[in-house]
């Protein structure tokens, strides 16, 4: 399995628990049903505005993931808005964010920035 510490698939605790699940040892390769043990019945999250959820493909929301793309969660909305405006105008150098920022309107950017800003880091 994954040995990279930054990739949560590497954490073996959860795996052992599942392999210890009664039906798995009996029916390897057949259906085994992982019911939601310890299911987190947390409160619903607020709905992201259009476009916001796509950002987390690169900008990790999980604080334990080490990534070169800066975190958006908990960042001041004005900072995000300013960064995207600078990417869009070409004032701020970028590898890919200049290409992506051009696809969003001011209102969309503001909504996305505020949604990420409200989230707890």
């Amino acid at each position, binding site marked *: 399995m994954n040995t*990279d510490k*930054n990739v949560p698939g590497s954490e073996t605790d959860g795996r052992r628990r599942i392999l210890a699940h009664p039906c798995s040892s009996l029916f390897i390769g057949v259906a085994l049903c992982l019911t939601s043990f310890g299911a987190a019945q947390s409160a619903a999250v607020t709905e992201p505005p259009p476009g916001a959820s796509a950002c987390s*493909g690169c900008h990790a929301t999980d604080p334990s993931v080490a990534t070169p793309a800066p975190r958006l969660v908990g960042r001041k909305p004005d900072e995000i808005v300013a960064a995207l405006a600078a990417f869009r105008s070409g004032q701020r150098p970028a590898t890919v964010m200049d290409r992506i920022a051009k696809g969003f309107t001011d209102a969309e950017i503001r909504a996305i920035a505020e949604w990420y800003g409200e989230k707890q880091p």
Partner: protein
Amino acid sequence: MTADQPTNRRTFLKRSAAIGAVALLPRPALAQGAAQHVVVIGGGFAGATCARALKRLSPKVRVSLVEQRQIFVSCPFSNAVIAGLRTLSQQQFGYEKIAQSGVEVHLAAATAVNPETHVVTLSDGSRLTYDRLVVAPGIDLRWDALPGYDQAAAEHMPHAWEAGAQTELLARQLSAMPDGGTVVIAAPANPFRCPPGPYERASLIAYYLKRKKPKSKLLILDAKDAFSKQRLFENAWKELYPGMIEWVGLSAGGKVTSVDPAAMTLTTDFDTHKAAVANVIPPQRAGRIAQIAGVADHTGWCPIDPETFESILQPHIHVIGDAAIAGAMPKSAFAANAQAKACAQTVEKLLVGEEPREPKLINTCYSLVAPDYGISIAGVYHPAGGQLVEVAGAGGISPLDATRPFREQEAHYAEGWFKTITAEVFG
């Protein structure tokens, strides 16, 4: 639902009609006052993302994820495994964390879907009744499309287009190949999973050959005349692997029309090529369960409403990821993940009888030409005219004249993307 937004009127009307058509059917969840139930078939980049995102948005909804394999093996970054730069274990992810997040994980294959009664049958005999179904089975390779290329042939001429044993087979064949041999990659016509994938693979194989077997050559026989990030790839090949990679497009006779795995030959309209190692990437279609569910059309792929990802062919069934016809969006893990999160929002709204918001989507596909040389293509998408179309003026490929540090940075971002997305989906 509020139908006052003119852009959503068409889908609203269509959905109302669809809902009317099934309103009389038994709806166990509602009848028994139980939680509403969403079933997701396929625990890959699309399905696993969608199941988790929906549970997070709406913890009261019962979400079942049906996946036929116990361990997911990621195709993204599997080309690096082929070139000996990563191990397959770094590509593997389990479903524990998803189960712990409150999603009911069923490690079984979905074998039947009845769109009228809303019942999914699993290979263990159990049945799941859904209020909404999300179909995300990825691709099936077409074993009927290329004469000579069937499952037995793939043991000699691996496709490695589904990661796992095939990835390792291709890696083993390359390391066993004598120096001076020709590696042949047969690339399919559009549409197919991961448009830049064959060319990233060619690049990383060349990286391996240059170091370990420098007298060898790599030939790409292509069933099309242009490919994703073509100029970036071709420039990089000249710079990094001069004289090593030859690409033959469709009009130059590149389309492979048959293969002979015993003779290790690939035949085009003009020629027969002998390969030391042959990587045949055959034509593809949506995973078979899509056909069974009646959501795939004659092309083998699944037409969807771009605003809701709902099937054009079956109401209450949504299709996301590689299986869907997503207009301008490529069949990529990034796109599958982005569609999945937007689809979860849509499904959540539809379950409570509200009008979903129009989605806005992003795709970014990185390719490694060498471990420290990355290139990318990006796009922003929205529904228009019944399709997902690219937002004009945005997106595009990495600059053609970028510096090496820029390429290095993109390689670094590529790795960051893989860590981030796999953590979001499986972590």
